[in-house]
């Protein structure tokens, strides 16, 4: 789960709208993916920042051509590309209004939004989050916080961290973000092992963090 730089704002029209809520301390419009004017802009800008990958699991959510800068004009995304296996996710669900709330909360807060693999998002649902693994914060550093076991292909907390911090990180990895979900581990393991075996890892976009850990530990760069 690599660090995400969300300062690259292409959806300037949305951002202006969002900042208006924030600077004037107003409740946001209630979240509605179907009718909101900026939904598609937010989705495509996030995917641009996330290089087309799920913010947590690093599986690919859309083809590379969807996230080219050329698809944008005057702060609006120009196409209606569908990201079938990805969902717009509120990292901290408590900031999103509920159906019965009379008005919105911080439903469209840029810093709280990520694009996430649909299965992962459904599993995460309303589980309580720990900001320690929020991938766009200044202090987040995947190589200091995480470790990767190249045998089991499971992520875990960096063993050099204190036990209480490790507990918090492992809770997020295993219970909230779904990074060690069994099917995902199979895919990650086999993608890494086979891509290196075939020498095709240079073409591979998915799982950059796991690849990085794997290469560092195995010290076996492909020939």
């Amino acid at each position, binding site marked *: 789960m690599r660090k995400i730089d969300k300062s690259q704002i292409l959806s300037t029209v949305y951002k202006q709208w969002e900042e208006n809520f924030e600077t004037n301390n107003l409740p946001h419009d209630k979240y509605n993916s179907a009718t909101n004017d900026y939904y598609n802009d937010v989705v495509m800008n996030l995917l641009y920042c996330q290089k087309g990958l799920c913010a947590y699991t690093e599986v690919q959510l859309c083809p590379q051509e969807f996230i080219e800068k050329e698809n944008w004009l005057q702060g609006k995304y120009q196409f209606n590309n569908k990201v079938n296996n990805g969902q717009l996710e509120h990292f901290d669900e408590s900031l999103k209004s509920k159906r019965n709330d009379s008005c919105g909360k911080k439903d469209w807060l840029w810093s709280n939004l990520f694009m996430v693999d649909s299965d992962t998002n459904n599993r995460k649902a309303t589980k309580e989050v720990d900001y320690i693994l929020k991938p766009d914060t200044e202090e987040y550093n995947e190589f200091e916080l995480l470790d990767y076991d190249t045998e089991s292909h499971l992520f875990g907390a960096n063993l050099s961290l204190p036990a209480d911090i490790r507990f918090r990180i492992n809770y997020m990895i295993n219970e909230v973000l779904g990074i060690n979900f069994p*099917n995902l581990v199979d895919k990650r393991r*086999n993608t890494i092992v*086979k891509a290196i075996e*075939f020498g095709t890892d240079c*073409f591979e976009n998915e799982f950059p963090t796991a690849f990085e850990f794997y290469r560092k530990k195995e010290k076996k760069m492909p020939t």
Partner: protein
Amino acid sequence: MKISKIEIIDYNQFKNFTVDLTYPKGHAKEGLPLDKVCFIGQSGTGKTTLLNLIRAIVSHGLIEKSYMNENMRDILVESYFDNLKQLSKIDKGNIQNTLFSDMQMDWQQRFQYLLSYYSESNVSIIFPAEINTDFNSILSDEKEKKEIIPLKNQQKEVFLSNKIEIDVEKEFKNKIFDFEINNVKTIWDLILEDIQKYKVANLSFRSDITNKVQSGELAPENLILELNKWNEQNPNPLKDLAEKLNLILNKFNLEIKAEPDFKSAEDLKFIKVYQKNGGEIPNNYWSTGTKQLILTATPLIKLNTDKSIVLIDEPERSFYPDIQQEIINFYTKLAPNAQFFIATHSPIIASSFEPWEIVELKFSENGDLVQDLYFKGERHVENYFIQPQYLRWDSILNKIFDLEHDGNPARKLKLSELSEKGLKLKQLKEQGNANPELMKKLWEEYKGIAELLDWKIEMQ
């Protein structure tokens, strides 16, 4: 009552078959009867036969004759009423029970003992696999011909009366809740009796209090006070039911409301289910999973099961895998002191059991039925080599349910296709001067097939 051993010399497919239903050596409950037992095995291996045998034993033969027959012979069942041991022998369809107590007991004394043992608890609750099929008759208005006497108001004097045999048997029978044999509407009327009474009383109180306010007899500002007073004096039985059933119902986006809600007399008939934060789902529109849950869990919530045996055939019916994963734990928490006997075909249900709680039935090479044992040497917790709770679902299918393949035969063909692509990629890599575009294209194709195989790409 808890069953600790079954021995069958010769009955149907069982020949010289013995199953130990106690905790093994090394267990904290070593030697005591198991709290829950799971029968698994191919169709025809006798799971239902064993359930029916237990059904006959716990009911002391007071069940429909179709579950007992003359071929039932040389069957021995050991059980315990707390510390008192009972040996039951079935021969030619007749049950002979011997209670090992300090005193010799005749028929009357034995039933007297049993009735005092079951004075608060019920004897057994039996759920057939097809429990949903009786749903319409539960909702029906038709009165039933069969009469059931009230459960708890029997007086001891009944033993002194001339009708002793009939009354004692009747009272004992009324503590057997068999949803396959008994008339289910009558059973449900009994189970929901307190809720229905509460609803009627609540309705009557509200009507009464409204009239008092309208006539000026009660000041409107005292209305809430009166309501609170009534609520304190009349505990709401729906509250406990809703709290427990909603643990699972919420996963179907449904709920039972603790507050009584009346629109018509129909509302008094049965439990009402609502969409979470939404309207009511009429009984006729309940999903089969909703029916299965309510029809099985409600009796376990409402009836005293402290000394009961609970039989559930195919608890997986109509439940999605995530609910199957939880349902056994859910049931056993609702009836923590009961002994459960379950028959299943579901690897997920089986994973809720410890290995000594599973009785896997299979045919030996000579066609006899045997129990597949999961331990080597002595029956000790440390000698078990299969622990379903540690296995993946696919491993349970392979190791416990003996499934030979890891998927549909089409999967094997797709794995071969993937293997060919992999070999081609390796060849290109070894040649050293492969066209990168070709490599990339082949890698994308490889990944496409691997995705279809869910990246479980090793041949088994």
